[in-house]
């Protein structure tokens, strides 16, 4: 059993500015939670507070309901994997993995058994006598993970563990981490700035910006129902398209009028109509994912957008069309055959259905639902 609860956690370094403002999240037993956000948003700070490496300025940190704010790292029953592996350079792989166990006065035979077992899981049995400097980045990363595993901690913490690996190895290791999580049934908290990593690994994801939690939910919810413009733009590749504009009442129908080219986009969805009622006359932003811009109209309500093709990228399985409409730049994900009919520099028509659109309040950046 291990659930980790953060309530109203805040952090300022020394007398400096607040870098974590007011974070409240609960990590359930055996859950894989990813903290994601742009560089400098406070992910590492949050993780290091959970580890006990940084003081918590205010708020409560609970492990299984027990407040552990003032517990030193060694008494927290957590293990951490660092970005630069942080292996002890003067020790062999075996010694690196055994160090924490020795300090806990475990019997030699038990240590050997645990290390061997972890080495087997990670397929590094043949490296046990090597020093870190004689290994590749991927191998070092495995050892770093092994050092955490042998401790059999309640909670695993990872701080960007894959960011020093090349793309291919990163993909492989991602899958192995998933496997490991299932195998160990441990609670894991994982920090990354890479939203793909977050989406593929996380049971739930915490999106952070400037020390604030933007949204904390499952990957699919973040993707399909972003709480605000930041999450909408951060999660997903390519990022969501945004069109600035205004809500107006035209002939008794509420419409979204795009700024610049003044396109009239009627809002057909009843729920959206209701939600947008208070916004008539106000500035809002329409968000639409690349796959919801199509070359053929999918339903009657779809609105044709006149666009100019800036660039085409055909990957074979899918294609991206980068286009402009007035001042706005958009990207559409199309089928590889559909793009064959398009040509760079020419105009074309893309269809947008408001059923798939998100609207964001320009003042608060929150989604309008």
């Amino acid at each position, binding site marked *: 059993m291990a659930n980790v609860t953060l309530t109203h956690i805040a952090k300022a370094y*020394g007398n400096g500015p607040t870098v974590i403002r007011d974070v409240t999240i609960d990590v359930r037993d055996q859950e894989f939670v990813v903290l994601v956000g742009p560089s400098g948003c406070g992910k590492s700070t949050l993780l290091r507070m959970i*580890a*006990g490496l940084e003081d918590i300025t205010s708020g409560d940190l609970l492990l299984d309901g027990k407040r552990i704010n003032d517990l030193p790292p060694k008494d927290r029953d957590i293990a951490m994997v660092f*970005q630069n592996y942080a292996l*002890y350079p003067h020790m062999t792989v075996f010694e690196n993995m055994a160090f*924490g166990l020795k*300090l806990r006065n475990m019997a030699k035979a038990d240590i050997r058994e645990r290390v061997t077992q972890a080495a087997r899981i990670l397929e590094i049995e043949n490296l046990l006598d090597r020093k870190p400097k004689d290994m590749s980045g991927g191998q070092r990363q495995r050892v770093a993970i092994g050092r955490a595993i042998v401790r059999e901690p309640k909670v695993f913490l990872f701080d960007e563990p894959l960011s020093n690996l090349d793309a291919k190895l990163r993909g492989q290791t991602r899958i192995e981490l998933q496997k490991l999580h299932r195998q160990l049934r441990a609670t894991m908290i994982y920090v990354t700035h890479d939203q793909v990593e977050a989406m593929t690994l996380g049971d739930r994801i915490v999106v952070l910006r400037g020390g604030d939690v933007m949204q904390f939910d499952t990957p699919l919810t973040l993707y399909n129902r972003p709480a605000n413009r930041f999450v909408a733009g951060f999660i997903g590749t390519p990022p969501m398209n945004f069109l600035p504009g205004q809500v107006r009442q035209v002939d008794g129908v509420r419409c979204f009028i795009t700024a610049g080219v003044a396109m009239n986009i009627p809002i057909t969805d009843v729920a959206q109509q209701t939600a947008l009622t208070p916004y008539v006359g106000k500035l809002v932003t329409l968000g639409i994912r690349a796959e919801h811009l199509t070359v053929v109209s999918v339903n009657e309500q779809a609105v044709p957008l006149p666009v100019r093709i800036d660039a085409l990228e055909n990957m074979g399985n899918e294609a991206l069309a980068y286009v402009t409409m007035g001042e706005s730049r958009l990207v559409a994900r199309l089928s590889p055959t559909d793009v064959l009919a398009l040509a760079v520099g020419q105009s074309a028509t893309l269809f947008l259905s408001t059923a798939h659109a998100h609207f964001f309040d320009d003042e608060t950046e929150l989604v309008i639902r």
Partner: protein
Amino acid sequence: MKYFLLALAALTFVYPFIWMLSASLSAESGLGDLTLLPEQFTWNNYVTVFTKIPLGRAFLNSAFVAIITTGLVLITGAMVGYALARYEFVGRDWIFYAIIFTMTLPFQITLIPNYITMVRLGWIDTYLALIVPFSLSSLAVLLFRQAFQSLPQALIDAARIDGAGELRIIFQILVPNVLPTVLTITILTFMGLWNEALWPLIVIRDESTMTMPQLVTLFSVGGRAEGQLGVKIAAAVLLAVPVVILYLFFQKHFIRSMASSGLKD
């Protein structure tokens, strides 16, 4: 041409040393010449030295004092250096500057106050007087601080999570990763202590507690050599031997130590 000059330079440095060796093995009458081979070879000078002064005892004293003090310098230097490199506390920088400042003070200035302290503590004629005043070295603190700053913080974090306390972090995790610094400090400290004659002359009067340089100095200038140059030289050779042996062992590090510490004396 280049090699000729180099050879000449080398010869200039080495010549006095070789002469010293050969002179110490010559009979007193043959000492006038600047020859490089012993005249009338004899061990007599060495025999005389050993019968006149307790050189064996002094050697042990020197070794004891130098080894213990160097050990203390390493321990205290690592601890203070770690605190200065990795802790944030009020006045840290001022403490660091103060430590650096003490390096600029010539030894002679602190000689009298230190002597008075030793008298008050009743440490005159004890090993404590030879060890304690030198057991914290600002050079060691400085070098350890720099070395620890260059190690990644994650190393310390990882050890902390593994359950290591601060002392274990310093001596089991950090120090093994700055061995060149450890060697530099060891060599410089050990040599400095081994060659130190002035301080022992001030605080030690009891012959059985004297260190080698002190004993040899007293012997040479104190009249007991009875004006016999060969005997004095033999004593000097014996004084130099341990350092030379040390040098032969750690030649490479010796050179690096000297280069890395343009700061010292």
